[in-house]
């Protein structure tokens, strides 16, 4: 036994949570993403159907709503987020606007500040004449233990991020799913820090991954171009 944290990780191996009802995920056309809606509480040990429900397919007739969730959309995932103000929302509530998404944690001193820097420079490049582009930036913590809403708020304030930036946390099992769709690799170390790959992902209004950069600088221009296209 070298570290209590390791044991904790092993004991809290992710359980697949929640039952997704596809219809519930399809948002009404006038739905405004908000963080004030009640979210179903799920018992961690509750046996469940696979919540990643591929019923949510655009070809399915019963889903021919005005905002169908596509087969490639991350909004098929049933993920509950808590933001820096302590309010909860579903990941799917971000549907409707392009989203720049990344996994970070607030006590990270090396890669995460660089990720945030990259994200800000991407957003700045897309904002024309100081007019903020209609996008959302979703920074999800991979460290739900330490990143309380208060910590997220402090981070957001410290970096003077505007209201388009949402800092959010999810439980460990759901962080793993978010990481899976963004293609972020990460691992908690005994020190409590994380090893993680610096990934910035771009989701279109339907939640499809339309751009992704790993590392810094090289693909930024491409991502900016795609985001511009999405905003238009």
């Amino acid at each position: 036994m070298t570290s209590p944290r390791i044991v904790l990780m092993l004991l809290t191996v992710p359980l697949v949570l929640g039952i997704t009802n596809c219809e519930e995920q399809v948002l009404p056309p006038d739905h405004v993403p908000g963080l004030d809606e009640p979210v179903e509480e799920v018992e961690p040990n509750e046996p469940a159907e696979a919540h990643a429900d591929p019923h949510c397919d655009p070809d399915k007739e019963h889903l021919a709503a005005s905002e169908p969730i596509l087969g490639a959309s991350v909004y098929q995932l049933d993920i509950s987020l808590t933001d820096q103000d302590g309010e909860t929302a579903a990941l799917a509530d971000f549907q409707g606007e392009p989203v720049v998404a990344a996994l970070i944690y607030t006590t990270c001193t090396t890669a995460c500040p660089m990720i945030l820097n990259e994200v800000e420079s991407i957003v700045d490049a897309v904002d024309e004449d100081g007019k903020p582009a209609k996008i959302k930036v979703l920074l999800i913590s991979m460290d739900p233990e330490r990143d309380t809403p208060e910590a997220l708020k402090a981070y957001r304030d410290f970096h003077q991020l505007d209201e388009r930036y949402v800092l959010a946390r999810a439980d460990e099992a759901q962080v793993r799913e978010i990481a899976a769709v963004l293609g972020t690799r990460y691992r908690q170390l005994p020190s409590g820090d994380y090893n993680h790959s610096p990934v910035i992902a771009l989701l279109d209004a339907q939640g499809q991954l339309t751009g992704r950069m790993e590392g810094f600088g090289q693909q930024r221009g491409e991502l900016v171009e795609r985001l511009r296209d999405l905003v238009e």
Partner: protein
Amino acid sequence: MKIFLLVLASMTTVGPGLWRPLYPAEGEEEITVPAFELDEAAVTHRQFLEFVQEHPEWRRDNVGSLFADEGYLDSWAGPGELGSSVGRGHPVSGVSWWAARAYCSSRDARLPTEAEWELAAQASTEEADASEDPEHLAQILAWYSRPGNQTDPVAHSEPNFWGVYDLHGQVWEWVDDYASALVANDNREDGTVDITRFCGAGAITASLKIDYAAFMRIAFRSSLQADSTTRNLGFRCARDLPKEAP
């Protein structure tokens, strides 16, 4: 054949034990893995077919592209049938992480973690920890000299110390935290990761350089995405030990 059926249905207790990761960070040189339950055999094509029949959303013609790439179950004759060229009792392959998770979840189970899987897999038929037994390592390595995607029916060989079959020699297997392997894509960096790429990384070097199969597993896992389905990749399920009665 009776034995097969018994085996297919059952889990066995593995651990507790110590696992030494190949690329340990500081404090990770030895990890204590609590006891857990693990499928004795890998999930078979037949079992996965039953799952798909009960959960048609996981048929290859229904699944969303977020959850599986184009190779998903592509060895099957059709979305709901195996066909004659697929061995029913052979390990299923061509299954994504999402699909494997969904299967386990339908059985009130989960995928094993990397630490759990590796703990189970370091056992030989005789020993719980044969990770430094050259003969054992050589046997594992022999799989890589076996061509293509040939498999045998599950549980055809001897079980290991824990009573688990085929952890080596048949197919790769998903672990839940497959994305925790953070070796650089260029493996000659010896796991020493660039601080600008990976937060919090110290100098990490391989601990047991003769365990080539372990290098391969890590390289393999680090090449995967959650939607990846390869013809040599299957899975088995795990479960926490039942809570002891107070």
